[in-house]
């Protein structure tokens, strides 16, 4: 690993100008927002998506859904000038809903309304709420109004939750619903922890089955592990379900989160304290070696959970001066941002564009870039170890001491690969 690289520009004597971000925001960095909705909805067992949009949009979204969401056939009406100018959007939506209802084992028909359908004015009150007993749920996700892919996940999930969570059902004491697409082993580990304290995880959202959505309605509290489920949290709050924000991330985050969950689920304080302390001790033991000490790492993604990883990297000893994400700032992001700013992070950019990330690449010197495809490609052209955030980090456990150790060990390994990146750039670009 590189011994040390200066965290600021070369001339350390003159006070550096503070970082000001990109000079413009020409190339927004997010997957098409609507894909977030498709990802959540098409993975529900028996959900038969019906998309209302134009051919180009349909092609792009179907392509990525078939690659990254589910191997599921997607239906849509043909919408061209003829249909749109004669006001047939409504008729088109109804036709595709009727067709979707004919599929086998349909549990729900999400109607995903996109830019051109929204511009043409698709009216919810004119759509059926169910066909042959199969629920129909309208989800409006025009890319011009929803600005990031994670936030569309929230809109989609909130739409189905409104439909499926029963307001009348009685809450089960000491139970927690987890909210966020996490590594599948993470809920198990969290559940094991809660059981030590007399609680348990009832389900994890966004679920893969309508019953999982319903189960969430029975929880005492919901833990919003990712900071962009604003509407979904709202839906659950309205039903009297408590909300725990933040995630069990790193030493400080895990202990604070365990205590917050203990309070929300009304668990035995002493036991909670014991569990929190044990977790803290396990994590501190690993962190004593400061595996990332002396490194500067850039974190730029569009998944909306970048700040969680940044916290881990910083606790592992890394300097993380810059974090950027596609989501907007909100109450749910406030705690993580404050923690980061108190621990050496100078800039958190919301709704970032590649121009912001490029400016940061100029301003700091990074040993590792965890970024979007465009940014990671740029870093590799400079011979800097770089990986695509979405593919590489989201497939690892993240939470509590175990997740921290797994993630930090992996990052440490990446840092050791610098010679490979340098050799490639030497060969191809010099």
């Amino acid at each position: 690993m590189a011994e040390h690289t200066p965290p600021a520009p070369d001339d350390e004597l003159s006070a550096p100008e503070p970082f000001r971000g990109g000079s413009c925001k020409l190339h927004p960095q997010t997957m098409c927002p609507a894909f977030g909705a498709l990802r959540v909805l098409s993975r529900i067992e028996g959900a038969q998506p019906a998309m209302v949009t134009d051919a180009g949009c349909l092609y792009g979204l179907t392509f990525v859904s078939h690659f990254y969401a589910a191997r599921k056939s997607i239906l849509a009406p043909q919408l061209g000038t003829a249909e749109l100018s004669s006001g047939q959007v409504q008729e088109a939506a109804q036709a595709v809903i009727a067709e979707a209802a004919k599929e086998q084992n349909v549990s729900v028909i999400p109607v995903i309304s996109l830019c051109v359908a929204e511009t043409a004015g698709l009216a919810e009150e004119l759509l059926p709420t169910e066909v042959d007993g199969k629920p129909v749920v309208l989800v409006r996700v025009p890319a011009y109004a929803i600005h990031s892919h994670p936030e569309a996940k929230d809109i989609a999930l909130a739409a189905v939750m409104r439909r499926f969570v029963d307001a009348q059902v009685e809450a089960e004491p000491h139970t927690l619903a987890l909210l966020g697409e996490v590594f599948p082993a993470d809920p198990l580990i969290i559940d094991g922890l809660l059981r030590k304290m007399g609680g348990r995880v009832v389900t994890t959202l966004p679920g893969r089955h309508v019953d999982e959505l319903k189960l969430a309605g029975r929880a005492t509290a919901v833990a919003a592990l990712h900071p962009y489920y604003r509407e979904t949290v709202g839906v659950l709050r309205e039903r009297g379900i408590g909300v725990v924000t933040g995630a069990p991330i790193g030493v400080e985050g895990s202990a604070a989160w365990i205590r917050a969950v203990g309070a929300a689920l009304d668990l035995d304080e002493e036991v909670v304290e014991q569990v929190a302390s044990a977790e803290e001790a396990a994590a501190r033991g690993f962190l004593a070696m400061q595996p990332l000490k002396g490194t500067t790492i850039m974190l730029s993604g569009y998944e909306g959970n970048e700040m969680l990883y940044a916290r881990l990297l910083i606790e592992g000893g890394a300097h993380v001066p810059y974090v950027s994400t596609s989501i907007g700032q909100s109450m749910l992001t406030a705690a993580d941002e404050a923690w980061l700013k108190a621990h050496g992070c100078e800039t958190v950019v919301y709704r970032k564009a590649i121009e912001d990330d490029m400016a940061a690449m100029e301003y700091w010197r990074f040993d590792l870039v965890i970024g979007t495809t465009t940014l990671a490609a740029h870093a590799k052209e400079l011979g800097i170890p770089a990986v695509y955030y979405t593919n590489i980090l989201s497939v690892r456990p993240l939470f509590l001491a175990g997740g921290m150790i797994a993630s930090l060990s992996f990052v440490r390994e990446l840092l050791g690969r610098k010679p490979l990146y340098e050799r490639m750039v030497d060969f191809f670009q010099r």
Partner: protein
Amino acid sequence: MSITLIRDISDSSSYWGASWVFGCFPDIHIVCDAPIGCYNLLGMAITDYTDALPHMANLTPTSIREEDVINGTTKALQRTIDDLRGLGTLEGKRLLVISTAESEMISADHKQFLAQLDPEARFFWSQSLDHDEWQGRERALLFAWEEYGKPLVPANAAPKAANLVNIIGPSLGCFNAPADLHEVKRLITGVGGELNLVYPYEASLAATPKLAAAAVNVVLYREFGTGLAEALGRPYLFAPFGVFGTTEFLRELGALLGTPSDQVEAFIAAEKRTTLQAVWDLWRGPQSDWFATVDCAVVAGRSYVEGLTQFLGNELGMKIAWSSGRPRREEEPDNSEIRRRLHTKPPAFIFGSINEKIYLAETNARMTQFIPATFPGPVVRRTMGTPFMGYAGAANIMQELVNRFYDIVFNFLPVEQVKVETAGHGPPAGPPAAAASAASAETMAWSKEATERLDAALEQVPFLARISASRTLRLAAEEAARVRGLREVNVAMVEAAIARGV
């Protein structure tokens, strides 16, 4: 007017087709009048899966927002151009603004505005609401010629030399273009042709007038490109497939170029002993007997459908059960019908897109071999070694099919299953378990040992498969515990799930 329904759309819109053509030129910068999604899907996500390009560097969106939908996109366009100028992106480049379905929806026509802003800039009304990607590509090629080529070429200019040949068509988003192009170039030069322009794939916008210098054009695809070939007014041929189809092409091309027929025949003779030797050897061997015994279906671009039908069907005698070309003709099966056919009577081989692959997966049709032959679907085809066209294509396809036959045989042979006994050995990967039933939706308790065993097992799974493996294993172990009436998953249940080969 009745509504037409689409299942798993196969062709994109003209915005995509035109951008994939214009995007090839290094001396152009495209501004798409689009919401961020249309930019991201084309410029960042999908071109990475079709062409293995990290992103399209010469594409910028106006990022249409809600207020632009109401007030028009002129302000957004002005801001975008100002920013591009500020960054110096437009230096040495022609600016092209292209409409999208959404901007057409609000009738955002920027022709006049652009003319005032920059006389060199152009506006391309893509007609994305109505035209498919093939029409978009066709119109983009013609537009490039009419705007940037034809005005600079004297009327009735003669070809610069009698043996100069253009290749028209290869562009971004064309399945397998590098390999097919490589083969077609080899064939052209083999019979005495000299390559003039490969348009647009290896050309610049500034080189467009040079199109007129060629004596003959080879149109790579039947899906698009003839419009430009017609406008150029020179004889043109389509790229060939198969042993006999390619031979015919070489003789025709030789004649058009004025190459002595001895020279053409000498090239063909040499090819028989080199590129095509594998075809002759496989034909004489037992392998070719199989071809008469199995059927295949083809879903692909028009050129591939015609070419594969000719080579596999007419030349090798394989039964072509059915086919569907892109753009699709009325009498060809649409995706709903293709799905029905694949569910009820799948052929032994199917050439197709990810759609066909999904339809096979829906019925677990493992006896059918899927061979990628078109988009949509993520597949890297960037080497020269996978052509479908020409002599090399014939050899490559035959080799591929024979290897698939070997695989089928392999999967038929009896095998004794070996049970993995000790922890940490052998991956628990395999077919996915049944999806979550209602009962299994609820998270169960896990003993510490069981969790550790799960982790150890997952360590053995290839990295990319780990997420799905962890979920499948988890569900299977929980199901096993539930069946036995346990309230907690223990190590034995995890072992049981692993042993089941979940």
